[in-house]
């Protein structure tokens, strides 16, 4: 496993419902990232289709990994010997109208795995539970570039999911997002908190552009385990920023603030009891 890796934050403006256009943009970014000696390129939530697809989700979703779009991107990550994370609409193989908001991980040997969003915002301008089924798994992927855990946007508000991924061994949490500008402060705070409280690297990649009145703010970033922002993309504009992750920082930070050592298992039981009786 590599001790240090370069990560590209591919902060793109997607065209709603136009997979062909978005695929071309993603392919271009993967090639550009490769030229800059990058190991992993990360795209936003639902980058393949845009976020505000509403009823078009049913026709845009694809099965994972059999879908055509994955096949196409897989070819490229194989050819370029790269890792990539991106968001897409996933259609269940067993029930065609059952959809997921999914993050996909591809690598030099093709499809590696997926994570289905576990917290679906259905409030304010968001209507995800209308369309998506909740995910129930939080896998950690053992790769040459580290042990990766994936989360999607609103998941970052729930410390439990990142904690679970960290306790399962993930050192690098990748959070893909479609966050509108009115929520910027929340995300800027929470991405730092999730990294510090878990002694983990956190890569956050957000959309930019306007979809149906929602203005995505960009601001993608890499947060070090000590909470320091080591790379930051522009606000409100497309950007491709590359940052370096040094896994040795994990141990240094953990020695300084040993949050994992000091975890108290009994609190998880108390939490469960209380949540069930909210």
């Amino acid at each position: 496993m590599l001790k240090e890796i370069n990560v590209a934050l591919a902060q793109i403006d997607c065209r709603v419902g136009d997979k062909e256009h978005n695929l071309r943009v993603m392919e271009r970014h993967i090639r550009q990232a490769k030229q800059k000696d990058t190991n992993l390129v990360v795209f936003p939530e639902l980058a393949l289709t845009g976020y505000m697809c509403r009823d078009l989700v049913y026709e845009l979703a694809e099965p994972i990994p059999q879908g055509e779009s994955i096949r196409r991107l897989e070819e490229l990550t194989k050819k370029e010997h790269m890792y990539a994370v991106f968001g897409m609409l996933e259609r269940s193989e067993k029930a065609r109208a059952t959809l997921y908001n999914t993050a996909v991980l591809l690598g030099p040997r093709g499809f590696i795995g997926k994570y289905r969003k576990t917290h679906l915002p259905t409030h304010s301008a968001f209507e995800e539970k209308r369309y998506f089924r909740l995910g129930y798994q939080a896998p950690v992927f053992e790769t040459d570039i580290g042990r990766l855990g994936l989360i999607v946007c609103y998941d970052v508000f729930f410390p439990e999911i990142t904690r679970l991924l960290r306790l399962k061994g993930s050192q690098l949490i990748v959070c893909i997002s479609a966050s509108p500008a009115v929520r910027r402060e929340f995300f800027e705070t929470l991405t730092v908190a999730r990294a510090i409280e878990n002694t983990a690297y956190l890569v956050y990649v957000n959309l930019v552009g306007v979809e149906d009145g929602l203005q995505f703010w960009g601001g993608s970033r890499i947060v070090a385990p000590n909470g320091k922002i080591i790379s930051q993309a522009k606000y409100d504009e497309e950007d491709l920023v590359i940052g370096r992750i040094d896994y040795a920082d994990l141990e240094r930070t953990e020695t300084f603030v040993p949050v994992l050592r000091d975890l108290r298992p009994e609190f998880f039981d108390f939490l469960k009891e209380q949540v069930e009786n909210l």
Partner: protein
Amino acid sequence: MIKLRLTSDVLKLDLQSVEARTRSFIRDYVQKVGAKGVVLGASGGVDSSTTAALASLALGGHAVLGIALPEEETHSVTDAKHAKLVATKFGFKLETVDISSILRSYFHSLPVYDADDKLSKGNLKARTRMVCLYYYANRLNKLVCGSSDKSETMVGYFTKWGDAAADLSPLMDLYKTQVRQLALHIGVPKEIVGKPSTPALWPNQLAEEELGIKYETLDLILFGLEHFMTTKDIAHQLSLPERLVDGVKKRWLANEHKRRPPLTAKLGYRTVGSDFRLPCMPR
């Protein structure tokens, strides 16, 4: 999975039930608002005749005022006769307001007016009709009852803030061919139901000619799209070129802006038109 078969059968209505539900919908809303009835544009076409007839059946003819809004370029003696025929049959009052002089004032007052720009001029007519209807509604404490159908609403075949502007639109969930069924069921005269539709925005304008498709076919395409069918499947079932069905779909999607409140930038806590989700409580 049960395959959806696109035949005219899928557009057949339980006419008694649809009539009853439409009538109670009109009655309920007018009562809740506390209005004294409805005003509606009476063009003599099938949509407005059916709407006026249903409103009269729901509220009584005394609570319904039909307003014919002809203008010199598109005036049709037959349409005027048909509007009168429906008013007499269903017992509502009919007034005629000739909007020609209002339009002429617009033409003279607008520095960029261009007589050759048929569409802008036509839309001005539809919006002028809307202004007149709302004036009557305000003066008489009535509501404006729209008569848009689902076919034209889906493909955007209407004037934004013009003919589709209304307080309630009882037929907006019925395709044109379904409106025709309902019209015959409630007794709208056959000559009105059978004649070609026109928005009357310019002389000799015919809806099916302009849309490039018969309503019988359009409605089946739209029904398929409503039910999440692919354009390929719809085209195959109806033996139509796929590009025709794709064209209808594109038109449907491209006109969403006409069916919604104006798009706004989300800046605040709850946003009008997006995530203020309030019940319609008119009083």
